[in-house]
């Protein structure tokens, strides 16, 4: 058998290599603390309309028997009705006055509870909820839209993503949770209750609305909805104008000093100028014909290099110099530390990395101080004994002390996940941190790739090249499969049972796989999935 046949098999081992590294890496042996907070952000976005799948479920569930009355569409319950079951409506739900519901009410549209009605369960709605005068709800009222409580209405608790509007003498027993505001509404007139809009309506508007409501009560809902839409549009417009004016005003006062920008590339200078003038990332991208993601990367890089502060204002030259000094000191200290540990100097260490390392070493010293003071020794001794102990060969003791100190001061490994930017948390990572520094910047290759424009541009070209290469391999595999005679020369170096088309296809599959990962990352970045940020491990 030709040993070359084993070559593709050897390639199969490549994906296993990182796994082996991970399995045999040194572990953090410290105690593990259970985080009390959930480790990710929660997205509570509910679409405006009823989603198709929910509609399908609702239509099917209507056939279910049980203690729930299910209706697809609007429901209107007459005055004085008494219902013992729960009600689920996939439209609007209107309860007349003096009704008694022993269960809960759920609707995907609006819910109106009439005057003096009594609901013993909960009220859940995706639309606006109105609890009438003297009505009472024993459970929780939860809605994605506004909740309005009329005079003397009594509920156990309210929860909404928008506003809660309370009329005089309306009472909530336990808890109000409102995403936007909690407002008091004036006493409602006898016929139609008023609602406090976010932008005051003109007298004329309110007069018209009252007139329409009086004469055509059936049109109330439509009229109110339209009025709400108009006010919403108005507020959006004002907000946008306000933002624009604010950005223009802030850019007026800024004078660009180009003396401190010698080290930047021309593209970076362009982006820098536009950023401090108050332009947002998308607009800069449009102006300079660049990908907004690329612009964002450059801006992040400028912030990191102290050309810009967090609010995209230019840093003063003094500050830049100071930061330069600090960085210089940091690099020097890092090199000293490395020398001390008998390792080679870190040539080409990045500024961020150096800074992080200095920060880490300072924190480490502080940790030891605290530990010593907890044991009743003087902190000064603690700092001095570090080096000596090491020299005396008490490495084990120091290592143990470091573990204790890190867990005492900074908590456990798990907390690091919650706050990735915190250098202190990284300290508790592993005992090997004491020996060699990990990437404290914590962002791995992604950060390193974002140091400047040219590299990104190269990557972009590479991406295009890769897809071309993939297509070529697929094409080659097809050609060789159907016309194997074309590549007979390869048979001289390959075993006969190893088909050429297989090799091409394998290469294509590998390239497809790697490209998919790249695309996924790119899409994730563009869609702003902050959840996908690297926080652990590197």
């Amino acid at each position, binding site marked *: 058998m030709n040993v070359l046949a084993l070559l593709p098999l050897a390639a199969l081992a490549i994906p296993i290599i990182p796994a082996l590294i991970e399995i045999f890496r040194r572990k953090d042996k410290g105690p593990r603390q259970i985080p009390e907070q959930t480790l990710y952000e929660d*997205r509570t976005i509910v679409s405006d309309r009823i989603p198709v799948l929910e509609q399908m479920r609702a239509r099917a569930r209507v056939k279910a*028997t049980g203690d*729930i009355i299910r209706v697809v569409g609007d429901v209107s319950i007459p005055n004085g009705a008494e219902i013992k079951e729960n009600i*689920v409506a996939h439209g609007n739900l209107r309860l007349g006055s003096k009704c008694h519901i022993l269960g809960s009410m759920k609707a995907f549209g609006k819910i109106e509870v009439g005057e003096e009605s009594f609901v013993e369960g*909960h009220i859940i709605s995706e639309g606006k909820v109105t609890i009438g005068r003297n009505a009472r709800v024993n459970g929780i009222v939860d809605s994605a839209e506004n909740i309005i409580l009329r005079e003397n209405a009594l509920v156990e608790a309210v929860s909404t993503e928008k506003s809660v509007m309370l009329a005089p003498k309306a009472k909530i027993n336990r808890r109000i949770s409102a995403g936007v505001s909690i407002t008091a509404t004036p006493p409602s007139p006898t016929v139609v209750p008023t609602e406090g809009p976010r932008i005051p309506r003109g007298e004329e508007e309110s007069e018209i609305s009252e007139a329409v409501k009086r004469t055509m009560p059936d049109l109330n809902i439509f009229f109110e909805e339209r009025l709400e839409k108009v006010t919403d549009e108005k507020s959006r417009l004002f907000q946008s104008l306000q933002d624009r004016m604010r950005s223009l005003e802030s850019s007026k006062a800024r004078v660009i000093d180009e003396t401190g920008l010698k080290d930047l590339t021309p593209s970076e200078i362009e982006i820098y100028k536009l950023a401090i003038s108050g332009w947002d990332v998308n607009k800069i991208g449009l102006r300079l014909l660049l990908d907004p993601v690329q612009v964002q990367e450059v801006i992040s890089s400028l912030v990191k290099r102290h050309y810009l502060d967090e609010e995209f204002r230019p840093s003063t030259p003094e500050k830049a110099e100071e930061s330069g000094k600090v960085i210089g000191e940091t690099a020097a200290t890092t090199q000293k530390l490395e020398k001390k540990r008998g390792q080679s100097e870190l040539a080409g260490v990045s500024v961020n990395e150096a800074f992080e390392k200095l920060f880490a070493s300072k924190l480490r010293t502080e940790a030891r101080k605290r530990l010593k003071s907890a044991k009743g020794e003087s902190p000064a001794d603690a700092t001095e004994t570090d080096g000596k102990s090491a020299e005396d060969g008490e490495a084990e003791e120091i290592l143990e002390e470091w573990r204790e100190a890190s867990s005492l001061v900074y908590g456990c490994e798990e907390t690091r996940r919650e706050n990735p930017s915190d250098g202190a948390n990284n300290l508790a990572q592993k005992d090997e941190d004491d020996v060699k520094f990990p990437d404290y910047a914590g962002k791995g290759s992604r950060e390193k790739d974002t140091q400047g424009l040219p590299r990104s541009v190269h990557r972009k070209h590479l991406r295009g090249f890769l897809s071309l290469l993939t297509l070529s391999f697929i094409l080659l595999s097809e050609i060789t499969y159907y016309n194997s005679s074309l590549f007979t020369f390869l048979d001289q170096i390959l075993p006969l049972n190893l088909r050429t088309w297989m090799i091409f296809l394998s290469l294509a599959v590998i390239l497809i796989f790697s490209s998919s990962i790249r695309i996924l990352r790119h899409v994730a970045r563009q869609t702003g999935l902050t959840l*996908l940020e690297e926080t*652990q491990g590197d």
Partner: protein
Amino acid sequence: MFDFFVFIISVVMVAYMLRHFFFTYYALFGTPQQRSFSRISGTYRPEVTVLIPAHNEELVIDNILKRMTELTYPKDKLEVLVIDDASTDRTRETADEFAKRCSYIKVIDRKNGGMGKPAALNDGIKFSTGEIILTFDADYYPQLDVIEKLVAPFVDPEVGVVQGRVIVVNEESSLVSKIVTLERIAGYRVDQTARDNLVLIPQYGGTVGGFRKEVLEKTGRWDSNMLAEDTDLTIRCILDGYQVRYVEDAECYEEAVTTWRAYWNQRYRWAKGHMQCAIKHLKNVLKTKHLSVVEKAELTLLLSIYFVPILILLGWMVGIGAYFTDDKLIIAPYIMILSSFTYSTVGNFAPFFEVGAAAYLDNRRRLLWIIPVLTLSFFLMTFCCTKAFVDLILTRDGKHNWNHTLHNGDGYNERDNRSNSRKTHAYDRGRVES
């Protein structure tokens, strides 16, 4: 002849691949299609009974009971029932100590034991007073506000069952625990999340979850003849018209198995139990009128998932058979692509890309490195499921053994305690209770 098998296998594989691809895509980029109840977590405070069945759990029982005393849920509305299932160690004594100190902790002594966890839970129900019944395993360690989060969805009258998230606490213990960690992450972070967000059917996992007591009474409690009593109860609740919700931020920490033997035993029980459920419920699922087409399709795929490794094994045999009989398959040129799809599709019930996406979403990128090792568990499960299927066919009389997984508190205790506990423990002995 082989063509037919290959066709069937390919169709099944493609169906599962599409399902998981859709789940993964949705977990990454989708928006929830139904409301979240996180907003009212803490507002709704019904009377809750927590059931903790325990059999020889002396090393971990104090962890969870101590935690129960620390929970933020009002103690006047909380009842904790420890069901001591004929333990021969100090489980009972430890629970009694807590019961003396806290009036809301009670111990139920099942002196005769037997019939496994479902029977113990059924006994617990008899003594419960809460409106909502939550279950936790003895080796679990919940977040402080887990009860508030778990009961919140019960505000919705349609919701009958709720499931929280399980996170492995001892992932560093061994390679097996790392693999279990990956599986758990994929199962909860992508699978359950997507199913909940897509208005499909999340699965009650037997722990870190709960029911309305009236739902339990109506559906007939836990079936002690079923090995996957949790899945069985989930399906029965769905068939009764109730909705299952998954609460992702209700997190609870578990101690995963650490040896291949324990892994095999646990998965064998799950596989057998799932197949039991599939045989029992598949017909009803397809016949019922109040489930939408999408729900029926999803439930069918969910119930049949443990048959997939058997199909894969069959596929391999077909491949070998075709090779020796020189039978040319129709799709021969693309068999390689198909196998790669298969490989990446049905890793260990979660495709590898799904596992990867879950680890990515959970900020656990380092775990991604382990993904190739999942191949081991994939091969193991192929044989495990086949064995479970054969055994199930041979024991159709319903007499199944309940294997109890022993826990040593590895994840929660500090290093010194951990090393001691390791010495004193034999992992995962099988215990026959029937």
